[in-house]
């Protein structure tokens, strides 16, 4: 499922610092819960990774060594070592290891370019972690955690319905 246009379109005019501020908060919260997230990257930790959602006019640039995340307009085309491109919800599913990256690649739902060794290392690092976005991001919202987690999990279920998803 792609991000609906009525939701995606306004992001094109929202100031980048505003979007980036929210994304940085989420990134920080994830790293707090998963401090060893990037350990499996080894020699690929200093590299720059781009996540390009095809349904948003944005690029998310991740630098594990710092660690940092930045948000840019898609047209900015930042210099990176490796990039993965696909619908936002599939990129988020990859972040959680909820979808199999190879299967998505075979189906052409994802495109990968650049340093494949670095990208493979990142894929395996993410897959080896125990990220659950509704749970992890919800936990950072204090008393609203149950509500946020439930809502986010419902959105995820709907977004990934029909994908080859498995979870015990």
């Amino acid at each position: 499922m792609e991000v609906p246009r009525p939701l995606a379109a306004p992001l094109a005019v929202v100031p980048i610092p505003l979007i980036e501020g929210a994304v940085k908060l989420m990134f920080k919260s994830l790293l707090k819960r998963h401090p060893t997230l990037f350990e499996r990257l080894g020699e690929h930790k200093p590299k720059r990774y781009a996540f390009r959602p095809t349904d948003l006019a944005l690029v998310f640039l991740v630098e594990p060594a710092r660690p940092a995340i930045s948000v840019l307009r898609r047209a900015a085309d930042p210099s990176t070592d490796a990039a993965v491109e696909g619908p936002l919800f599939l990129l988020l599913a990859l972040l959680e290891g909820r979808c199999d990256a190879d299967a998505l690649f075979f189906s052409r739902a994802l495109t990968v370019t650049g340093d494949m060794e670095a990208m493979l290392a990142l894929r395996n690092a993410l897959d080896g972690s125990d990220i659950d976005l509704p749970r992890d991001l919800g936990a950072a919202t204090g008393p609203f955690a149950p509500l946020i987690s439930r809502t986010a999990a419902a959105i995820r279920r709907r977004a990934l319905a029909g994908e080859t998803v498995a979870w015990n």
Partner: protein
Amino acid sequence: MELICPAGTPAAFREAVDAGADAVYCGFRDETNARNFPGLNFSREELQDAISYARRKGTQTFVALNTFMRAGHESLWYEAAADAVRLGADALILADFGLMAHVAETYPEQRLHVSVQASASNPDAVNFLVEAFGAKRVVLPRTLTISDIGRLARQIRCEIEVFVFGGLCVMAEGRCSLSSYATGKSPNMNGVCSPASHVRYRQDGGDLVSELGSYTINRFPREEAAGYPTLCKGRFDIADASGYAFEDPVSLDVMDQIDALREAGVSALKIEGRQRGKAYVAEVVSTLRKALDAKPEHRRPLLARLRLLSEGQRTTSGAYEKRWR
């Protein structure tokens, strides 16, 4: 028959155990195992935790040390074997005869399995490994028919494990030099076939072009399912023809033959895919577990959904039914 399942990370390991694996196979994060991919595999501490987790659930752990030792650097493999034994591996999966001899002499009580990488596929080869090193099981290459396996089973003195699902290596494993030819690295010596360091993908219009080293492996039009960039599944121009020289981008699935495999004398069914994600492991292991326990007529619908997870989104029975070109 036992279901032997892959794990490249501790998370995938737990998924395999929870999904109903009888045994999970995995390896250390170095060149001692034939899936030495970046970001994959286990540290000693992770293996210790994994083995404890498996034991609590009644699942066995097999440790693959299935590359060939480099002369002068044997200690890397010896230390890996010592650690796997110390941590309580239920079996070591080995390919190198020198390492088999070392393990048989140093740890005579340790159960030893012959890796598919040893390419043991006839009675003389298998029985030699049983007699010389006390091998208890052989993992057969994916080049034999079910009749071949039946004939072999009657002449050897150890258990047989065969691949039934996942990536299809069509070569005599442990002997294949295609990856070495293109990149200088091989699964046999470095633990990597078509290493990611030499892979490039590029978009050319709507086409996806895959390259390995200085070779173009394939060009997939927009609507066509993609495959791995391995030479054995490359699409080439040969004389006046254009097509797949060895095998199509396709995965192995012989789960509809499990009764025939059982009758042939097979003890264990192996799923390929230590390089795949935990979602793949969970889905494939739980589905194959259900299929193993189901009546034959109920298996096909259960297995149909796995096709989308497979390379090229297609499956084949490979050499088991010998329909190759």
